[in-house]
Structures are given as C-alpha cells and as structure tokens.
C-alpha cells in the first residue's frame, strides 16, 4: 500500500534522513520507534507531502506522492494525526469534526458514530476547542482524522500528554480499528507498548532504519533497541516495568 524507496530528506542542505526503505501492506499496523531527532517526524511529513524528499520515492498504491500537494495526498486517503494536538481552536468540537468529514457523504451519521467512541467529545460537542484539555484535544484530533475514512492512518505520538487510563482507551480504539482492517503507521516514544501493539516495527536512528521485525523478534533484541533509543543515556529502567 505504501512504499518508501531510498527516501532521503534534507533541511537547508543538511541531510537528516539518509535513504529509508520500507513497505506497508494493506491492513498492516506498523510502528516506528527511535530516539528524538532520529527523523521519524520528517519521514511522516514526507509521506504526507508536508516536505519534499531530496531523493528517492514515496509510493502510495503504486502512485508516486513526490511533489504532490498535501491536500491531494489527504484526498487519496492518507490521514495524519499530527503531534501536538493541532485542532481548530476557535471552532467548536462539532465544527472540528464536521471539517474532518467534509468529504464523506453521510457526514452527520459518521460524526454520530465517531462520537460514540469518544464519550468526552460527545459531552462537549458544543464547546470551543480551545476550552478542551490537552488530552481531549488529542482525542479530537484522532476523531477528526477517522472521519475522513482514511485508507492509511498515520499517528504521530497519539499518547503524547495523555494519562495512563486515556492511553489505554486510545489503544483500545486503535485495536478496534485494526480489527476493522485499517492500515496504520504509528510513531511512539513508548517503545515497549508500540512493539507489542504493532504487527511489525521499524527502529529508526540517526536517519536510517537500524532494525525491523515482528514483536517476537524485536523483543529478543530489546537491549539492542534500548541502546538505539537511549541515545546518550543507557541506564536500566527504575520503575520495574510498571508502565509497558
């Protein structure tokens, strides 16, 4: 469904992603983990057309996305839930959702169905989005992306700033979407959780894919992954795996 071939990304002449290759098959849930500054967000931005790869190709269902405008890529069915709760703050929750559903025929019904999954949003449908808490905004961003019925759902740190219980709820929801066959590309900092959740994981570090594999395979190499993730520090976890 999605394929990156030798994709390189540079900012003002400085290459930050040095040739990344991977494919995502329909219905597959792929995780991307790696330390801060590894180039994860840059890869996502390149897929969504927010920046143009300096070399290589990004293909979606056989079509090249290179140089295509972000809105056209979105219309092909690639939905990005950006990091940092980017919602339309001056609009109400309901209006935000309506904008997400603009291309869907049965907009109102779809909004209703989506709101069933997010009870807190249903409760606050008439509120302005800037009155929502950080976690509620994150839920709104995800709900809005789902309304476009994406063929490929890309989530950039969906659990950022969320409490443990809310994260559980979000992952429950993502699990349901997986059951429905939604293809997903998921970027997370919480490596253990991502590895467990996804069908397959890519470990990105220093602008290249260092390792990839299925949960079982990666679990065995967990120390190795931690070494990549740790960057500067490689201390043992002190919380005894309380959070996973």
């Amino acid at each position, binding site marked *: 469904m999605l394929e990156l071939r030798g994709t390189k990304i540079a900012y003002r002449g400085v290459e930050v992603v040095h040739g990344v290759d991977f494919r995502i098959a329909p219905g597959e849930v792929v995780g991307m983990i790696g*330390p801060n500054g590894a180039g994860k967000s840059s890869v996502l931005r390149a897929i969504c057309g927010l920046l143009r790869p300096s070399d290589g190709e990004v293909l979606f269902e056989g079509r090249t996305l290179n140089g295509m405008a972000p809105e056209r890529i979105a219309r092909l069915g690639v939905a990005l839930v950006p990091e940092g709760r980017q919602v339309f703050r001056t609009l109400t929750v309901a209006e935000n959702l309506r904008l997400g559903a603009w291309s869907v025929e049965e907009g109102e019904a779809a909004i209703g169905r989506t709101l069933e999954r997010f009870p807190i949003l249903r409760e606050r449908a008439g509120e302005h989005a800037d009155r*929502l808490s950080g976690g*509620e905004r994150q839920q709104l961003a995800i709900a809005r992306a789902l309304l476009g019925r994406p063929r490929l759902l890309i989530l950039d740190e969906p659990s950022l700033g969320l409490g443990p219980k809310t994260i559980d709820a979000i992952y429950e929801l993502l699990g349901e979407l997986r059951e429905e066959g939604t293809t997903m590309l998921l970027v997370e*900092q919480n490596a253990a959780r991502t590895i467990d959740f996804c069908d397959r994981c890519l470990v990105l570090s220093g602008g290249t894919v260092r390792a990839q594999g299925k949960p079982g395979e990666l679990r065995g190499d967990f120390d190795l992954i931690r070494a990549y993730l740790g960057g*500067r*520090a490689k201390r043992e976890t*002190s*919380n005894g795996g309380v959070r996973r």
Partner: protein
Amino acid sequence: MSAVRLRSRPSLAVSVLAPLVLIALTVAVGTSGTPSLRGTVTTILCEMIVVLGLQVFIGNSGVYSFGQLGFASAGAYAAALLTLPAAFVALQTPGLPDLIANAQLGAVGSTAVAAVACGVLAAVVGLPLMRTSTLAIPISTFAFLVVAYNVIGNWDRVTGGSGGLVSIPRTTGLVSAGLWAAAAAAVALAYKWSTCGYRLQATREDEVAARSLGIGVTGERLIAFALSGTLCGVGGALAVHQSGVLAPTTFYFVASVTTLTMMVAGGARSVFGAVLGTIAVASVNELLRGVEGGDKVLGLFSIGNTPGLAAIGVGLILLATMVALPDGLTSGHEAGELPWIGRLLGRRRVADRAAPPVTAPMGGGKDGAPAKAPVERAGALRAHGIAVAFGGLRVLRGVDLTLRPGEALGLIGPNGAGKTTLVNVLSGFLEPNAGTVELDGVDVSGRSPFRLARAGLTRTFQGALPFPQLSCLESVAVGAMGIGDRRGRAVARAGEVLDRLGLNGRATQPAASLPPAEQRLLGVARALATRPHYLLLDEPAAGLNEAEGEELVAILRGVLEGFGCGILLIEHEMSVVMSLCPRVQVLDDGVTLRIGTPGEIRADPSVIEAYLGHSYLEPANA
C-alpha cells in the same frame, strides 16, 4: 564566561560594518554625481533614517505601526520652525510663540531638539496606544497619523496650515545626512542587541511565553515606540532642511507606504535590511519617476508622460515582496548572519558553529552568588480554594495547593481534571472566579504573569512555545533579561543553563530547528534562566522516551539541589513523577482526590479508578 557569545566576532563585525559600508557607498555615489543627484541621494538618506525608525519598532515588536510618519512630520515641523528666518515667520506663522520663533537654531541644534521632542511625543502618544492589543495597534497608530495630519493642516497660525512652509534654510548636506544615517543604523543595531531589544523580540516571537519570563509587553513596546519616534523625528528634521519646503502631506500616506515598502522589501527584522531596502526601493522609484516624466527607459525609448508610474511601482514592489519574499531581501537576517555573505568572505556559515562547551559551575540564587547548598528560604507558594468556571463548565471547584522551596510536588490526574488550568491560575495567566494565591506570604491574586515571574514564579507550557527566530542561547538569555539581568550576565547565565541541560551544542542554532522534545527542554532552560523560586512545569517529559525521561529526572534533581527552588511537576509519565516527587497531589474533575507519597498514590483505589486504570497494575504484578 567570556567564552559564551551571542554571535561570533566575524559575524558581529560584518553585521555592524555592512550597513555602514552601504551608507558610505551611497554617499560616494552622490558626491560623484550632478547637484541634482546629490540632492536626491541626500533625500534618500533622510528617508533611510525614517525607515530605520520604523524597523526599530516594527521589526523588533512584529507589530505594524502606520503612525510613525506622524513623528517624522512633527520632527520636520519642529526643526523648520526652530530655524525659519524671522522675516518669514511673520509672513507664514504669525502665531508662533516667540521662544520658538527667536530660537534660530543651527542644523545640529534644531535636529537634536526635534529628536527629543518627537521622542517625548511618541512616549506620550504610545502610553495609551501600546496598551491596546497586538491587533489594535496598527489601527490606533493609523488614527494617530490622521490626527497629526489634521492638527498640522489646520493650525494655520503656527504651522502655516495646509499651504505649508517655504524658505526653510537648506542646511542638510550629503555628508551630514550620511553621518546621521550611519548613527541611526548604529542606534538601531545597538537597540536590537540590547537587553530591551531582546525582550521586545521575545514578545514578537511568542507573546505568552515572553510574559511568563517576566517580560512586560506594554513597557517594552513603549520603549521601542519612543526610540522609533525619535529616529523618525530626526529623519523628518533632516529632510525638511534638505528640501527647504514642507507641507502637511509631505509625511502622510504616500510617504508612509513608501517607507513601509522599503522596510518590508529589505526585511523588517533586519537593520541591514532597512538600509538595503531603502536604497533598492528608492533606486527603482527614482528610475520610474524619470520614466514617468518622459525620460528614456535605459536610454533606449521613452513611453511618454505617464503620471503615477512611480507610485504604482512602489505598490507593485510591496506586493511582489509580500508574495515572493515575505521576509525581504535579507530574509530578516543581519549581514553577518547571511549565508551568502559568509561564503563571500570564504568562511563557513557562522551560525553553524557550535558554542564552546561551558564547564563552569552553575551560578546560584538571585544575588548571583554560587549556591552549593540548597538555598534555605522561608515561605511557600500557596493556593486556597481556587475555583474556575468556563461558562457553565466548572473546571476547578475549590482546590488548595502548597509548594515549598526545594520541594518537588507532582500534580497528576486524568485529562481534563484541571491541572493546566490550575497552573494558569498560579502563574497569573487566568484569574480564578474564587480563591487566592499567596507567594511567600504575599497575596498575589490577580497579578500579571510578568510580575509573578519577576517575583520568582516561572512556568513552562505544554506546547514548547519556542522563539523560532532567536538562537537557543538568545532564547535562554532572554529569560534572564526578563527579570532584569544586564546582557552580559544574562548570556553567561544562559550558557550555564544550556550546559547544565545538555543543550550547549545547540547554542547558536535557531530554536525552530530543534526537534520537539528538545524545544520543550529549551522551554525549561528558558524558565530556569529567570532564577525561579518556584518553577511550574507543564508536562516537560511529553515526547521523551524512557531513557530521555530518566535524563530529565536527573536534570530536574540537579535543579532542585542546585537552585533550591520548588518544582510543581505536571506529568503523565508516572516513572518521572514517582522518581522525582516525594509528594504527589491527584486532581480529578476539579477537586483534589488525594495527596500522598508515590506509594500511597499508586495503591489508592480511587486514584486507580480515576486515573491509572486497572491495567496499570497488571504488568507490575506479573
């Protein structure tokens, strides 16, 4: 600490010399030409001073003012009336007070008096105007321009009215205009890189973050507005002594648009841009004025008399700039920061050089004395019965909180519990419907954020709110400037903080170029530079992986021990909260659910139910 510099020496030298060299070249072109060219170039140099005046306010504040030409007009009238020969006073301005009429000042004297008068006028006018919002200032300054125009145009007995003044002594020469312009450029650069200048630039980059660092937006804007008025007054005074005639329309719409175009074309944030933009736009303008009068285009053909061509040209330049080069010819950089000038000089890009690592120990409390042991401080940050409602939604329903110096208090709770709202109240960004906030025994309820920051209470934000155009070192130094540090000390402090947080390799990079997690860390660094007694951190570990989270804990522990400040930590990453905070307060649905040690909190059934969720416990048992 001399190792820490905001910019390298070559970069600084190029930035200072480039505008001066351009001005010198302009003067040289004028000297070698015909008398008419000399006059034109002199006028351009006077315009340049006005444009530099615009740059001081607009470039550094990021807020457009359409009223600065009113000050140029005031300066021009002041200088003209102070020098008008007695015979012409009786003819043109019979109502002029004797004091002014008899002054008969020289060129320098009249310009200096005009400058001071305009500075005072701008301060007085700015006092109410700068209190209006960022969006209202362009409109209100425009209103000032209209008022100034009408006062001058109708005060016939003093200003000569709409007919204007003639026979004003023409004392401004090419070289003296060049010297004044060079001085104005130096003043604009000195201001930009002064403590005040950096504080104002911080408000341009992010007003909310700037206020959290102790920067009073109104006050900083007022300083720049007055300085801008002074420079515009000088420009006006010199211009009138160049042309010898003056009318209310001399410095009105057309001049406003022209000078704004010059500033924008060059790049509003840059002093070099103001100089370059003035020369570029004025050259095109002069060329078109010639063509409009029937001159041949490039000596080839004439298109006959085409009135309005020059004005259309200026409008088109403004349009083209906005579309193609929104940051102007210089992209808003000073000359030393321009990559192509760096290449021209055969150097690596100066901005790419990392600052040398700073290994000196961290400075301590407000007095700057190195503090090895935790500072023992009495008092605490106390909140009593805080209640906040947004419309019908009651976000906080009577919350108490106590934070002592040297203590780390964790604040956790489900999304929407009201944690950030509570921090907004504590830091002065939100006025509660009920309840009081007390800082070291003083009731500070309703105080503005920047006053609280100066009193030792600083916060960070969920979003990093970086100052995108400032370098990391500048961003952090601004934090220290916000509470009143001089520049040198602020920069030294910034170097220490960056070093402590492991960001010293990023010192000269623009804040916008950092990955999100490091931008958040930069926010913490910025807040630490204000030497807080109480530091409120809103999700500093968001977006960090486990190892990075552990590093942050180590850093914050160092902050607790080295600074002795109290830390209120909002964080969802429980491992961070549990390992740093001996005391944790749980908020749920606007009320305090529980206060206790991490162990008590983790075992509390109500906390598990409301926040942690039952799945949280399973892996620990497994």
